[in-house]
Structure formats: structure tokens, C-alpha cells
């Protein structure tokens, strides 16, 4: 029995010494601490010149992109930069004050929307008003129908005349060209009080960094418009393209 045990022990020792391959990891030690690393990153970072950009990892075991069965592994510190960028949405101001309105004179104001999206994602911005500009539901400035009474919350047409009253908006910027042909094209906001869903006012299919879209509000009233404080609010929603 003892011989059997000794033999087993001998086989174990043999296996340990000769069959187990050594792990080539990094080992650091001091009187108080041991640090064992699977790999030793010498340097990593982001470098650039006029024409080139480089992100690198030196010392990483098996760096690079590996993919199998739809699962992608990005091994190496340089891939961390992809995760740094979140979805960012900026609005320059939240209060739009048209001041005192004069009948027949269009008054404008602007909002600057700025978007940054992470790698691989475009964006869409939708807008919706809670209700028309109103003092009360019976005292309101109508949503614009534009010059030919043909624009809707999802269709822009020119609005330049001074005898078509209402409240509307236009958006300028790279992401808005599909929705507003130029700065004379306007449309009313999608109206929550009329059960209208938010409508896309700017979108792009590619990732963007600090992409700006300028919302140009316009309000034009007739001389019959009752005096008072007309209010509403617009909700802007930013989501990435999936």
C-alpha cells in the first residue's frame, strides 16, 4: 500500500515537472506584495500625425480583433477608446422668448442642438410640442400651415409670406437636409395635444462628433390675435441608430 502511494506521488511529481507547461506571465515581488500579471503592457495609447492616427498596445498577449459565431473580442488597450464615447446631446438654451409680437411681422429665435454618437451609430432627433402656443386651449396661435396650406408635422414647405399666420420651425444642418430643403421650408411641430407622435427633424446614418443642427422657430400673428402670454414647450429626443 505504501509502495502504491509512493508510486502515485512519484507520478504526480513527474507530471508536475514534465507535463505542465510553464505560464509565461509577469511576476513582481517586494517584501510585502506579489503581483502576477497575465501580460505586461509596455505602452499603449493614441498617436497621430497630419495624415495618420494610430492606437496601439505593446506587450498584450494575443492583441487584435477575434471573431467567431457573431461574438467579437477586441483584445488590447487601444480598443478602450471605442467605449469612451457615449451618446451626447446638448441644447444651448431651454427658454425661447419671442418677446412682444407685432401683427404681420414674423419673429424668430433659434436653438442649437449638438450631437455626438459612439462608433458605429448614427442618430435621430425627434421633436414634439405639448400643445400649440396658447394662453388656454381656446386662445391659441395656430400651428403654421405654410404659404400654400400644405405643410404638416412631417412635411415641410416654404413659409415666407407675412399673411399666413402661425407657429412653426425650420432646421438647418447636415442632418436636417432630408427634412428641410432650405431655410425657407417650415413645418409645425408634432402636437401631443392632437395625439401626434414625435417626428424626426434631423438624422444621420454615420457616427458624428459635435454635429450641430440649428432649429429656427418662427411665429407670425394677425392683428386679431388676443393679447397675452402664449406658451408651450418642445421636447427633443435623441436616440442612436441601432
Amino acid at each position, binding site marked *: 500500500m505504501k509502495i502504491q502511494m509512493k508510486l502515485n506521488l512519484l507520478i504526480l511529481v513527474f507530471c508536475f515537472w514534465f507535463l505542465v507547461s510553464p505560464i509565461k506571465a509577469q511576476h513582481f515581488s517586494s517584501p510585502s506584495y506579489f503581483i502576477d500579471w497575465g501580460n505586461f503592457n509596455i505602452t499603449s495609447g493614441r498617436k497621430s500625425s497630419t495624415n495618420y492616427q494610430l492606437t496601439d498596445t505593446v506587450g498584450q498577449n494575443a492583441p487584435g480583433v477575434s471573431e467567431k459565431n457573431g461574438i467579437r473580442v477586441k483584445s488590447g488597450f487601444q480598443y478602450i477608446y471605442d467605449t469612451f464615447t457615449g451618446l451626447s446631446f446638448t441644447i444651448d438654451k431651454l427658454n425661447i422668448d419671442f418677446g412682444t409680437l407685432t401683427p404681420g411681422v414674423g419673429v424668430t429665435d433659434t436653438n442649437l442642438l449638438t450631437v455626438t454618437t459612439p462608433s458605429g451609430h448614427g442618430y435621430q432627433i425627434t421633436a414634439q410640442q405639448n400643445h400649440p402656443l396658447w394662453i388656454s386651449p381656446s386662445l391659441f396661435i395656430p400651428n403654421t400651415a405654410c404659404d400654400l396650406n400644405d405643410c404638416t408635422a412631417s412635411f415641410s414647405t416654404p413659409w415666407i409670406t407675412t399673411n399666413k399666420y402661425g407657429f412653426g420651425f425650420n432646421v438647418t444642418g447636415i442632418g436636417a437636409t432630408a427634412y428641410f430643403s432650405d431655410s425657407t421650408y417650415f413645418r409645425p411641430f408634432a402636437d401631443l395635444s392632437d395625439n401626434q407622435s414625435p417626428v424626426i427633424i434631423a*438624422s444621420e446614418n454615420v457616427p458624428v462628433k459635435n454635429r450641430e443642427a440649428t432649429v429656427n422657430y418662427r411665429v407670425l400673428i394677425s392683428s386679431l390675435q388676443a393679447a397675452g402670454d402664449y406658451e408651450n414647450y418642445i421636447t427633443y429626443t435623441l436616440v442612436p441608430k441601432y
Partner: protein
Amino acid sequence: MPAFNLILKPAQIEIILKPNAIFTQAYEVTNNSSGTLLLSTSVSPWIPADNTGTVTYFDDPNPSLKFSLSNADLKLGQDFLLNPGQKKQLVFKINNPSTEESDHYLTFFITQKPLNSALGGHQNLAKIGSHLLVSTSSKSTLTSNLRISKFSLNPIIKDIFTPLKINGEIFNNGNHYSHIDGQITIYKNGQTYWQQNLFPYTTTSQNSRLIHCLNFQDEVIPCQLKIPLWPGSYQGTITLNGNVSKYEYSFQFFIFPYSIIISISLLFLLLFFLLKPKQSISSRR
């Protein structure tokens, strides 16, 4: 500083959720605005609106997945304040109580609310959302079933000095969302002439995405062959590497030096008409 500046990370997550499984995701929301923001969280379902990744929201009063926040001080839908420069981690939890095999496309929203109730009637507001693509299944790996549809090469007349654009859509005929994983290869005389990886868009079930290519900076670019193109016959293959089988779509086209031939013909015609009257004048003399 802007009145509203919010950053939400990550912008999208994609998961497979087994029956009775719970998934937890930490979202990081950062307020870079000039003032404190009053915010709230919510989840809305969406459907794909087109082939470019646009989404349309709808109401689902009885969602089959259950959502909650695991934060000790916050529930889903509860208002919270975020000071300028402050970051907050929102630990979002999804529970799949059903055994149904299906896909759920959702957005986790952070919604701004009026901080001052007096401003509530006229202060513009903002929402920012992160997409959740959830496949509920008892399997760990889901079979992808992507196919090429609406393939075309532009322009129709393929000249050596006209860039050739490869257009098309990739349709997901499967029951679950899938990533595009593949490449376009163009062969000439049996040798690889041009190869580009396809951009790995997520394609939702029974929906399609436009074909785009991926450059070396991991950016989306059109799939386009640069000029000049050598005249002759070309063969092309779009390969989609499914997790079970590989799908290949083959096509071919012919490049002809139309512009050179037309230019030479016009030159000859010009010379012909220039020389012809002189000959007739000289013959009269």
C-alpha cells in the same frame, strides 16, 4: 455652458436572455450642463422604421419583460437630480419571466423634467435614449439567417473612369436580430482584385439594412470600387458568415472603356469633318 448637456453610456446593448434569467446593465449618465437637471428613467419599445436604423416607438401596456432599477435610492420612473458635472450610475435590471422565443427592441430613456414648476409650461425639454436589443430564447447561440436583397451595381453603364458603387440590402429572415459579418470580394482573372469587410450593422428580425463597407478606421463607407478600373470581366461575391453556415451571393459585371472609345470616335469624327471640306476644295481646284 449649455443649458442641457447629457451623456449616456452605453448607447446600445444586445443580449440573449434565457427564461427566468435576469440581466443587469450599468448605465452611466453625466450632466455637463450649466445647471442641475431633474431627470427620470423609462423604457419604450420600438420597431424598425426603415433600412437605415431609424426606429418608431409604440405603446406596449403589457410588456413581457420586466424592468427595474437596482439602485438603492432610485426606482424606474422615479425623478432624480443630477448636479452640474455629476455622474450617476443607473443599474438597470431586465427579468424574463416567460419562456417565449422572441425579440424585444427597446430604448432606455433618460427624460428631463422642468426643475422649476413655474417654468413647466414653456421650458423646452430633452430626452436621450440607449437601445436594448433582447432576444429571449432557451438557446445560448441563435442561428443567423441573413440574405442579400435588392442588389444593384451603379452606374448601369460601367466605364473605366466611373467609380462602381455596390448597393443592396441584407435581409434578416431569422426570428432574432443578427449582426452582419461578411465581406465583398471582387475577382478579376481568378485573382482577388478588391476586398472590403461589410459594416457590422445589427439587423433586426424580418427587417433589412443597407449594405455599407468598413474602412481601416472602423468607419462606415460606401462599398465603391475606385477608378480607373481595368477593362474586362469581373466576378464578385458577397459572403455572409453565419454562425451555422456561410451564405454567398455571386454577381458579375463587365467594364468597357466607353469614355475612351467615345473620345477617340469624336476625335476621328472631328478630324474627318475638318479634313473633308479641305479635300473637296482642293479637288475643285
